[in-house]
Structures are given as structure tokens and as C-alpha cells.
């Protein structure tokens, strides 16, 4: 047990920090509106291009595909330092962390040549078309249909909760190609060009007011057979490979945001009144802040243990589910603690830039998106503990 960085990890961090310092662009200030959306996209694409040119795109990818072959620990350092440096978010994250590794694992040589470089360069943005209105927790119920027509599939159906769909160039889509077999066995994974006629995107407004997700509609969308990733009717295993890669992301970046959020809350507790004293001196408030602090600290420690374990085993297990369950529920508790401390101020749109209000609302989705808490608990029970399947 040695919780210090190794010399090579330390060097990775030093190199990245040194590179970040002159290269991180100024923070985008203000809301993204319909007027400036294109500017914002350009800003994000430029940032990804900058990372690419600095050699910091797709760092987990093997060197032969233009990556850096970074270890898991280095990936964690990378994510964390991005967050510490207030870097813009990665517009190409789905391509970099989900689509790219899956193409590397399962794609044809032609697919690799065609798609990997623009993902790295930030020239092509990807979105992930897995969930459907009737295939949420039960992903294998995918119902979007792809019917063979000569050398093409004709795709009809609907996807939902598709982040980045408004700006994406391509979509990694699950569609049903066999309607007779058991439901896991009739799914195919397609690389779909979002500019194909018949595709429309509708932003989904969340209760927090913003539109992070979209619906994507396919109406007689023609997709060449060459765009199958993996084998026809083996899309379920392609999807599992993709999700495995996603799950290996243990949320090291997001923890920086949690930390910032908690520090801001603690600072606020010194200015908010509680019975004529700063809330920070109220024993009941102090208990709550301390609980939020210790839970976040333990998230950090759990993450470090999971990184160690994943680094040694090499294959992602249920660590991702444990992490996801922990941080999503922790974050909801912390946001509720913030509301309790701030009282009606916490609900205001113009108090601290509305960040408490937004945080409280947005966080509610944490235990639903990317696998509900119920699904995560099932996974832990079945895969970690070996309990019999529940349904």
C-alpha cells in the first residue's frame, strides 16, 4: 500500500499540468443560447483540437492508433487535472471514451482508418443511440428496426436520452435486425452518419430547464452494411464492450466538481444566518456539513481503491456500479444538505448564479441516468455477491 503517486505518475501529472497551463482556453462565460450555440460548439471543438495537437486526445488508446497508452491511473490524473484547470468539457467524450475503444476492439481495418483519426482530432463528434422509450433499464428491448434492403439497412425508430445529438456527426446505434430470435440475439450495432436523410433530433428539456439530452428519430434512414460494427445480430456484445469501457470511467473528474461545490457550500455556511449566528456555527448544520465532507472523502478513497483494483485485474468488473451508486446518491444527499442550509435562498435563480437551484434539480437525474440505482444494486448483488438473478 502506497498512496503516493509513482514517479512515472508524478511525471505524467507534471507534464500534463505544464501543458495545460498555457493551453486551457478562458472559461466560456454566460449561458449558451440559440444565438451563440454555434460559437460555443466551435469553442469546444477548438479545445478538443488543441488537446489533440498537444498529444492529449484519446490518451487511453493504444499508441498505434494515435493514443498515449496511458494507464488507468494516468487517465484518472488526466480527468482530474482537466477539472482542476477549469478546462471546457470534452465535446468528443463519447467518441473518445466509448466509440473509439469499441472500434479499436471490434471494428474492421477500414472502419478504424476512417473513424479513429477524426475522433482524436475532434473533427467528428459522436453520440450514443442505445436507449429508447421502451428500452431504458431493459436495454435489450431495443425496438428500432433495421430492415435489409440490398447493401443497406433501412432504419426506423426512436432513440432517447441522447447527449450531444444536436452537434454529433455520427451515432453509435443499436437496432433490431432479427425479430424472431430471443431479444438479446437480434440486435446489431450501426455507425450512423447523422446527416443521413430521415434523421431528426429534438432536444429534451429537463426539469432543471436545460436540454442536455435529445430524442433522435429515424425515418427510413438508409445505412450501408459496411457500417455494421462487429457482426450483424451480435450488437448486444458490441454494446457490452462499449459500456464496459464507459464503466471503467470511475468519475475522477466529477469529484473535483463535488469538492468545489462542497467548499462553496462551506464558505456560504459562514455567511448564511441561523438563529442570529452564521450557519457554520450551528451544531446541526455542522453535523450535516461534516457528513457531506466525509462521504466525499470516502468517494475519493473508494475511487483510488477501485483504480488500483482495475489496474491490477485489467478487466472492469462491478467497480463502476459501486462507484456510480455511491456518488449519485451521495451527490443527492449533499445537494439536499445545501438546500437545508441555504433555506429559501438556495431556491433562487439569482443566488450564487442559481447554482444551488440548478444543482438540486439536475442531481435528481444522477440516480437514473447511465443505469438507475436499482439496476446498479442488481449488478452488485449478482456480479459481486453472486446472488441468483432476480428476474
Amino acid at each position, binding site marked *: 500500500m502506497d498512496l503516493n503517486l509513482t514517479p512515472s505518475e508524478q511525471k505524467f501529472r507534471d507534464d500534463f499540468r505544464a501543458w495545460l497551463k498555457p493551453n486551457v482556453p478562458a472559461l466560456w462565460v454566460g449561458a449558451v443560447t440559440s444565438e451563440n450555440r454555434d460559437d460555443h460548439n466551435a469553442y469546444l471543438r477548438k479545445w478538443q483540437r488543441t488537446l489533440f495537437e498537444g498529444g492529449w486526445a484519446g490518451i487511453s488508446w493504444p499508441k498505434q492508433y494515435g493514443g498515449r497508452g496511458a494507464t488507468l491511473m494516468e487517465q484518472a490524473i488526466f480527468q482530474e487535472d482537466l477539472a482542476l484547470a477549469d478546462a471546457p468539457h470534452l465535446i468528443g467524450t463519447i467518441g473518445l471514451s466509448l466509440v473509439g475503444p469499441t472500434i479499436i476492439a471490434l471494428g474492421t481495418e477500414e472502419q478504424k482508418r476512417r473513424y479513429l483519426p477524426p475522433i482524436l482530432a475532434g473533427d467528428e463528434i459522436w453520440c450514443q443511440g442505445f*436507449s429508447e*422509450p*421502451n428500452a*431504458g*433499464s*431493459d436495454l435489450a*428491448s431495443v425496438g428500432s428496426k433495421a430492415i435489409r434492403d440490398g447493401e443497406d439497412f433501412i432504419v426506423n425508430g426512436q432513440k*432517447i*436520452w441522447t447527449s450531444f445529438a444536436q452537434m454529433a456527426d455520427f451515432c453509435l446505434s443499436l437496432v433490431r435486425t432479427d425479430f424472431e430470435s430471443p431479444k438479446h440475439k437480434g440486435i446489431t450495432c450501426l455507425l450512423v452518419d447523422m446527416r443521413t436523410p430521415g434523421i431528426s433530433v429534438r432536444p*429534451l*428539456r*429537463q*426539469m432543471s*430547464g436545460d436540454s442536455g*439530452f435529445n430524442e433522435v428519430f429515424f425515418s427510413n434512414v438508409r445505412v450501408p452494411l459496411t457500417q455494421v460494427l462487429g457482426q450483424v445480430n451480435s450488437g448486444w456484445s458490441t454494446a457490452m464492450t462499449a459500456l464496459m469501457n464507459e464503466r471503467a470511467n470511475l468519475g475522477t473528474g466529477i469529484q473535483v466538481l463535488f469538492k468545489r461545490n462542497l467548499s462553496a457550500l462551506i464558505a456560504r455556511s459562514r455567511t448564511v*444566518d441561523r*438563529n*442570529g449566528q452564521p450557519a457554520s456555527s450551528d451544531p*446541526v448544520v455542522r453535523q450535516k456539513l461534516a457528513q457531506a465532507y466525509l462521504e466525499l472523502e470516502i468517494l475519493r478513497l473508494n475511487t483510488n481503491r477501485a483504480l488500483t483494483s482495475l489496474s491490477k485485474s485489467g478487466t472492469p468488473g462491478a467497480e463502476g456500479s459501486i462507484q456510480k451508486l455511491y456518488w449519485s446518491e451521495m451527490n*443527492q444527499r449533499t445537494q*439536499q444538505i445545501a*438546500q*437545508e442550509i441555504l*433555506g*429559501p*435562498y438556495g*431556491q*433562487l*435563480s*439569482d443566488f450564487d448564479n442559481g447554482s444551488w*437551484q440548478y444543482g*438540486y*434539480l439536475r442531481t*435528481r*437525474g444522477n*440516480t*437514473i*441516468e447511465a443505469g*438507475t*440505482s*436499482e439496476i446498479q*444494486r442488481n449488478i452488485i448483488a449478482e456480479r459481486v455477491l453472486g446472488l441468483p438473478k*432476480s*428476474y
Partner: protein
Amino acid sequence: MDFDLNKMQRLLKETARQFLSRQCKPERVRRLMETDTAYDAALWQAIADQGWTGLIVPESHGGLGAGIVELAVVAEEMGRACVPGPFLSTIFATALQPQHLEKIAAGEIKATVAILEQTANWDLESIRLKPSRDGEAFLLSGTKLFVPDADVADVLFCVARSADGLVVVAVERGAAGLTIDPMRSMDETRKLYRVTFDGVRGEALRNADIVSAMNVATVALCAEMVGGMQWILDATVEYAKTRQQFGRPIGSFQAVQHQCADMVLLTESARSATYYAAWALTQNAPGAQLAVSVAKSYCSDAYREVANRGIQLHGGIGFTWEHDLQLYYKRAKSSETLFGDSTFHRERIASFVVDESPPAAGQLTNERAAVAAR
């Protein structure tokens, strides 16, 4: 003992539900949310025509002269429909028994009550706004925050601290020196305002019992919260019966069932606490203030928990703007803090049940025990 609505109360509830299902559909709620004041004159008139603006106003003043239980019945249905506008504020105002009772009862004027200041503390002891005398009248200078419905109120009752103690000063809409600014908040069905007084002239209410009035308003709010919980529970159970995943309705999964069962416990317990508090206020029972704090403390936590589970069980769709759950989710939060959150009311409960000297606690036990089998 009969801890159930009587026939008249059940009829009132049924009428209210039908009326609101016609008059205040979710589309109307959404339309009003997007306005500056969430006020709709036609809806208000319809509510006044039901007599609800004068629900607890004595018949001698043109009201229905109903009790607090009847108020809870109507408020529960208002909360179930998530009705926007100044109903709760107006009820609070009528509970102060101001000179304006007839006009409020008739729906001619709307009213609100300004309490919170910078500290956002619902303890009336924390009120600092100090009026100065101007003959029979008072002059107010200072700021009140988080005042609901201030921009649509024709009269605003400002609670201030005079040399003789708390005083409720009535300020007319448009009075000189009065400034009203919106405080945009999470729950857009209940608009809040910053009210600035710059030498505003107003008259003190005679014999206004602000503590009692706030108890009445708090119970009405609790009843609204119970109605909101019931809406979420009903919507969630309905969804769990119809939504299919893994080839079966999600309501057949224990993880869903057990959360629904907890929602039943929370909702029914909140209802018990609320109606008991309403009854205790009506009877002027000695433990009424305690009952109000029990109800508000429990409802504050329960509505939030029910709303959390409602969204969780709906999955992604419950988290969208287009689903009506969001209205209730935000209402749960605004209601949680209004008139004091659970922590505030627990401390108040402690002041009743922990601070009593042992003999008094003994009396309490007996009193409570006596109530226990009614």
C-alpha cells in the same frame, strides 16, 4: 371518535376535485408558471365564486364560516392540482381577521403577508423591521424578502416590531414608497418578491393574532402538500402498473413495490398529522401549536421524499420538463421551507416536549394518553 371526513366534508372534497380538474388542468398551471405573477383573474374569480376566498371568513363578514378541517380539505385539492396564485396568501390574510374581510371573502381584493427578512428565519422573534408612529398610522422603512404573491396583492400585511411588540401593518397596493421586485425561485407556481418600504404609510390591524393566523396558513400549506403527495403517489402507481421493462410491469419488481409502499406510509402519515392539526386548531385544543409543528415537520420531509421516489420510479421521463412531476417536485421544495422547514419545527417541538420540567412532562403524558384512544 371519528377520524374521517364527515359527509359535508367529503362532498366539499369531491366538489373541489371536480372543479379543479376542470378549471386548473396542468396546461393552465404551466401557462401561469410562465407569467410574471402566476395569477389568472378568471381562475381567481372562479375560486371566489366557489366561496373559497371566504372559506374561513365568518358568515357575518360574507364568508362561508367554515372550520380549519374544511380549509384543509380544499387546500388538499388545491395542492393536488398544484394551483398557482395567491390562494394560500389570501387565506393567511383572512386568518388575521383584518378590516378587509368582506372584500377578500368576495374575491374583490387579494392579500398577502410579509414576514421574512434578511435572516430568512420564520421565528417571529427574529423580525426586526421597526415601524415609526405617524399619528394613528405607522411608517415602514426596510425590506421584506420571499413575500409570496406580493405583486398581485391589493393589500399587503407587513409584520413588524413596534415598541409594544409585533404589529401587523396593512399596506395598500401602490402606496407611496413601496417597491416590489420579483425573486425568481425554483417553484414558479408560487412567485416570491422582495418588498422594499421607504417610509410607507399603513394602518395596524386591531387584535391581529399573527401566531394563530400563521398556524392556520401552515396547516393549509400542509394540506396542499398532502394533496401533492397523493398526486405523485397516484401517478407513480399508475405508471408502475403500465410501464413495461424486462417483459413485465415495473410495479411487479420489489424494488419498485417497496418504494411505493413507503410512499403510502409517508402520504398517509402526513395526512393524519395534517388533519389532526386542523382539528386541533378548530377546537382550540391546548396542544394545537405542537400539532402544527408536528404536521409541518413531517410534511416537509415527507413531500420531498415522496417526490424523490416519484421521479426515481418514473425514470428519465419523470425528470423531463414535459412531465408534470416537475411541478410537484418543485412545489415540494418551496413548501418544505415555507413557514419553516422540518429542522425549524423539530426545534419548536423540542421546546414543547423536551424543555418542560418533569411534572409538566407527566401532565403531557396523561393529556396525550387521554387523546390517544379517542
